[in-house]
């Protein structure tokens, strides 16, 4: 089964990702992200990269897909603004799993 990858962000600097076959979705407001993720997931999109800014504002949406294997929603500094959300997520996972952050 062939599937696609998508990237969701809020400005057009994301368009570069279209050059490697990643579907770029640009939203004007964080509230649109839920619908976009739903429609992307319905279209068979299995990996969705979102910008750090969007990721920290969509906790309810993430909760919805947390227990499913797909789609995989990941924070990445796609728009040149690295807020360190990804690293914090790794540290939170380590703390959740072993009770102490060994990378901190």
């Amino acid at each position, binding site marked *: 089964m062939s599937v696609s990858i998508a990237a969701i962000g809020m400005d057009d600097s994301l*368009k*570069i990702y279209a050059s490697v076959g990643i579907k770029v979705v640009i939203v004007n407001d964080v509230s649109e992200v839920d619908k976009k993720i739903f429609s992307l997931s319905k279209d068979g999109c299995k990996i969705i990269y979102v910008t750090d800014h969007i990721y920290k504002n969509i906790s309810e949406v993430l909760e919805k897909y947390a227990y499913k294997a797909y789609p995989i929603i990941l924070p990445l*500094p796609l728009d040149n603004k690295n807020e360190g959300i990804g*690293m914090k997520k790794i540290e939170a996972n380590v703390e959740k799993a072993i009770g102490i952050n060994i990378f901190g």
Partner: protein
Amino acid sequence: MATRLVSPTRMELTRLKKELATAKRGHKLLKDKQDEMVRQFMDLIRRNRELRTEIESSLLDVNASFEYAKLKSNNLVLQEAIMVPSKDIVIECDSKSIMNIVVPKLNIVDSKETNITYSFAHTPSELDDAILELTSLTNKLVELAQIEKSCDMLAVEIEKTRRRVNAIEFVLIPDLEENIHFITLKLEDNERSNIIRLMKSKEIIAAKNGY
């Protein structure tokens, strides 16, 4: 306490002893499961951290190159240049089981070479750099997605298992042991009362009959 609710009978004692044996076996199994999940989690999280550090710094380079390209060239020309992908990512998605947790398994099928699909005459070289760097990152991006999701799911499951292990170790097993102790004491007490009653009865009968 649960102690008050149990009926002090031999049948209940046998049932509780069986339950205690099962709880101890379950505790050992869950503890082993937790240890194995933590072992696998540690391998994955290290790789996850490596990949993320690498990808985040590369993406910043890609974005910086693209910003330069945007400054040097017309926006429309750039949009036209990146309209046709230089590489199509085709991935096969499957799932695998780690200690009974279904995690995603992704495989990149397409490993065709990158074909720059625009003319070099009107586009800046920074755009080529950005696209080539991004193309070299695609495999890692997919691997990161797979590993990070596996880590998320494992972390949640490890936390759940740890709670279960603790509940069995510190609540269920002590409660069962306390109940078993209570029933044993109560049965011994009943037995003693019975013996005393018999001894008393014997004494009364003996006194009556003048022995």
